[in-house]
Structures are given as C-alpha cells and as structure tokens.
C-alpha cells in the first residue's frame, strides 16, 4: 500500500509533500509521542502517528526515513514545521481521527494489503 492509497482509504489530508512523494510503499505503522521511543522504534517506510507538531518531529522523521508523519485529531501544525518538512522532503498528513482510531484502521488496512 502506498501513501496515496492510504490517503484514499483513511480519511486524511496532505499537509506537506508533493504528489510524486506519495508513491512510497508503507512498511508498517507506529504510534508514539515520546520522541526517544519513536526514534528507536520507527523503521524506514513506517507511518508515524503523533500529536506533536514541533520541528523535532521533522528531524526524527527524516532521521528514521519514515514514509510519512500522520498528525492526529486535526491538531494545527506549526508553519515552521511544514516549511521544514518541505525542505527535508518529509510527507506530513493530517486527520481528524484520534491516534488510536488511525492506528487501528491503518493496521487493518496493512493486514488486508498483505
């Protein structure tokens, strides 16, 4: 499943990133707001679900090579974070759903796609 497929199936919208970046395959999902944990556990190609929207999220997403960051609960994403995401080529998505709902739905979608 690519990021584009996920956007279609999982009610979420693109906050940062270009069309061609959406072809990346998703390898899994991880949900955590503790940055040390997230950094240690995120694998390349993962979707990282978080409610943080500060600059450090982009730094960690870039370091871990995740497929995208998915911000839950429509939390407003800081402008400098979006600008940095564009600069670092990190895809950022936003959804009104909670982190728990997104994790569950994405997990089911990934299982189905296997």
């Amino acid at each position, binding site marked *: 499943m690519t990021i584009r497929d996920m956007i279609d199936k999982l009610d979420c919208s693109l906050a940062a990133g270009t069309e061609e970046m959406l072809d990346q395959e998703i390898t899994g999902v991880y949900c955590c707001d503790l*940055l040390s944990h997230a*950094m240690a556990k995120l694998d390349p190609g993962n979707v990282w679900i978080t409610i943080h929207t500060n600059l*450090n999220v982009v730094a960690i997403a870039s*370091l871990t090579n995740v497929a995208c960051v998915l911000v839950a609960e429509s939390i407003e994403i800081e402008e400098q974070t979006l600008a940095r995401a564009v600069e670092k080529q990190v895809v950022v998505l936003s959804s009104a759903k909670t982190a728990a709902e997104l994790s569950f739905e994405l997990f089911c979608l990934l299982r189905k796609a296997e």
Partner: protein
Amino acid sequence: MGQMIIRDFDIPANDFSVAGEASSTVRKLLSQLGVAPDRIKRTAIAMYEAEINAVIHGRGGKAHVEISGDKIIIEISDEGPGIEDLELAMQEGYSTATDSIREMGFGAGMGLPNIKKHADELVIKSEKDKGTVVTITVNF
C-alpha cells in the same frame, strides 16, 4: 574505506530549528559509504540523543566525528552545567528537563539510556560547571 573521515559540527544552544542537523548529515554520509542500515540506525539514534542533550542541557556544544573502516566514534562536548549525578542520569525515567522541553516530547529520561542501548561503547566525562563530553562508538 581506507582513509579516516573526520567531520566537525557546531551545536547551537536551545535552537530546535537546527537540532538534529549534525546527526542527519552523519546518517547520510554513512548511507553513502554503504554502512549496514542497522548500524546507521544505531548511530543516528545515539548521536541524535546526544545532540539533543547538548541543545537542551549543555547550552550547545560541538560534535566531532571520526569514521574509519570498522567503526564510527562520535564525541559530543559542551561547556554546560555538567551532570551532577551520572548514575542517576543513566536511570531510565530520570530527567532534569523543564516542562517546555517535556511538552515537545523530550525529557522523559530516555536520552542517556537510549544512547547506551544503541552504542557499542559509551564514555561520559562530566564536571560540574565545566561541561560534559559524551563519546559514542558504534562498530560496523
């Protein structure tokens, strides 16, 4: 890789707009050198944690990186307040970070334990009011 590669970075204090840049540059470099992905991941995690510690606690500092054929040695040094009780600081969950740092998702007392977990060797030298030097080695 025959020759040793040396890189130096400045780590500005309390500036999250560039926090992680040194680690990110090193990760890219290791990737270009063809180092195994799991070794790159360990290096990136350990170095990023140490870099963030220098940003948050050390009033900024410097990173000195040496890459040879079989390992990377990262030295992160600061002239900050030093670590008062190193044994305590190494304990998971112990942190002296402020509320504003915690609100960003740091300050859970995971930094130093995370470095220890991902480094093959970790040496910390710290002196009160003089600063801290964290030396991380990851074998390839």
